[in-house]
């Protein structure tokens, strides 16, 4: 039973690894330089998968524009529903591509979360926040500040830097917290809570291995760092669709499409993050309930997850700060 659990966990993690960064992993195992295209072949099915996701993203992105335009010529419920559907599917597929917080959320959940439901809620809130940031950026700039579409977009790029900075800081904080028990003593959970700590709800004081924390309520204070870290970076696709809809005078269409997009993204991120947590817990079950090992395992996971959040944040921040100019936008 345990072995089967471990195997399932292993397979899930391998699948996740590929989904996240399979193409990247393949790149690192391949030759460093190739003179001409056609010289190197990666795993074919992996390419096919990546190509399929890429092709979907491309076509849906264009269909989004077409959907808004269709609504302009024929303002009907059917056209609106078509746009919402395309936006939703775009969100689902776009989130499956690189970035978009799914790796950050997954690593964060490995480091910090016991309960699946909390993780799903966080993924959903982060995705919603991304959409709301896009809406606020576009309409704030165009209506309130009287600025240009380009201005809103450049603001979004700045927010990206802020977002990655927050993720880096969050990673550092998670790491310091994960390492703290190792520094202060080897006890897993031996200190006492004084009268000021009647229960386990105090934030910043999570005892990762303690099953009692599984139903820790979601409070704004504990959830805000990760939601803000992900959500302050507006989806660039949403920005573009919002501005396009605005130029056609279809304000509600832009907002509706953005929210549908967020819903799609939320579902994908929540599924991937759930898979990460699920496979961790399968691995934990394989280790068994003997608390010494289990405590060590969860602690290791917390450290590794925190390191991953920190590394992701730092890499993204560095990339955002040193990114060369892009053509047109």
């Amino acid at each position, binding site marked *: 039973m*345990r*072995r089967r*659990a*471990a*195997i399932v*966990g*292993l397979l899930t*993690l*391998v699948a*996740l*690894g590929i989904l996240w*960064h*399979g*193409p*990247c*992993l*393949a*790149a690192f195992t*391949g*030759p460093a330089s*190739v003179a001409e*295209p056609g*010289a*190197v*072949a*990666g*795993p074919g099915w992996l*390419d096919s998968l*990546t190509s399929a996701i890429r092709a979907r*993203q*491309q076509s849906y*992105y*264009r269909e989004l524009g077409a959907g808004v*335009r269709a609504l302009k010529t024929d303002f009907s419920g059917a056209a609106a529903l078509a746009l919402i559907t395309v936006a939703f599917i775009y969100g689902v597929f776009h989130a499956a*591509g*690189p970035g978009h917080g799914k*790796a950050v959320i997954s*690593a964060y959940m*490995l480091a910090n979360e016991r309960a699946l439901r909390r993780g799903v809620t966080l993924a959903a809130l982060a995705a919603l926040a991304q959409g709301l940031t896009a809406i606020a950026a576009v309409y704030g700039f*165009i209506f309130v500040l*009287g*600025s240009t*579409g380009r*201005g809103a977009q450049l603001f979004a790029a700045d927010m990206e830097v802020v977002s990655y900075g927050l993720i880096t800081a969050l990673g550092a904080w998670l790491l310091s917290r994960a390492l703290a028990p190792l520094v202060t003593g080897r006890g897993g959970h031996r200190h006492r809570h004084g009268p000021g700590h009647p229960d386990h709800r105090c934030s910043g004081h999570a005892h990762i291995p303690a099953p009692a924390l599984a139903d820790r309520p979601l409070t704004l204070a504990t959830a805000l760092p990760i939601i803000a870290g992900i959500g302050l970076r507006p989806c660039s696709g949403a920005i*573009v669709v919002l501005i396009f809809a*605005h130029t056609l005078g279809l304000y509600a269409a832009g907002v509706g499409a953005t929210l549908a997009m967020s819903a799609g993204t939320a579902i994908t991120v929540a599924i991937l993050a759930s898979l990460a947590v699920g*496979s961790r817990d399968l*691995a934990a079950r*394989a280790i068994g309930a003997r608390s010494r*090992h289990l405590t060590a*395992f969860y602690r*290791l996971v917390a450290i*590794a997850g925190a390191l991953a959040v920190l590394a*992701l944040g730092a890499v993204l921040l560095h*990339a955002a700060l040193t990114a*060369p*100019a892009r*053509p*047109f*936008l």
Partner: protein
Amino acid sequence: MSRTTPTACFAFALGLAAPAIGPAGAHPHVWVSVSAVVEFGAGREVRSITVRYTLDELTTAVLIEGLDTNSNGLFEREELKATAAENAESLSEFDYFVEVRVGEERVNTPEVTAYDYSYEDGRMVLALQLALARAIDPASEDVAIRLYDPTFYVLVELEQENPLLVSGVAADFCRVIISPPSRSGDGVSISDAVLQSFDGEYSIGRDYADVVALSCGVSG
């Protein structure tokens, strides 16, 4: 420790390693239709190429929103001037999406010698005349032209109609042959392409680009 523990730990380490490696990959955010005219000198040598970039509606919307400063509902040349200049400038960092090769040799297009822009039917259009670093004799040299964004941020597509023309003097003399990308499903893995795009040698955008060749007869 049970026997499954090492397996579980390995499984877990693998799962953690995956997201930590960092983001990679690219997909287009902007679509540009291009057409080009290959221009010849008096001696039937290729001197320059004029590329006309038509941006997609969404990108155009972002670029022009708020630029109608006199609020007359039109986007006039003066209102678009700064944006057009900015775009031409930014294209210079990407070789203007143009790659001209004579055999293995790359002939650069470093200089814009003429420049025009307009707003047509919801789309921003930019036209740049690019001088070749050296003249090419297409009768004796094999010319291959590819139009693509090396970073693959922009998907560059040839126009459906007359994507490539040769200028007047060579119209009877040269034929344009457009071949689909050499990549046909097998070939290079996308991951390799993405990685190599960093050193500028090879990019995924190139992989998707049609190859335009000139076939020029001596008899003319």
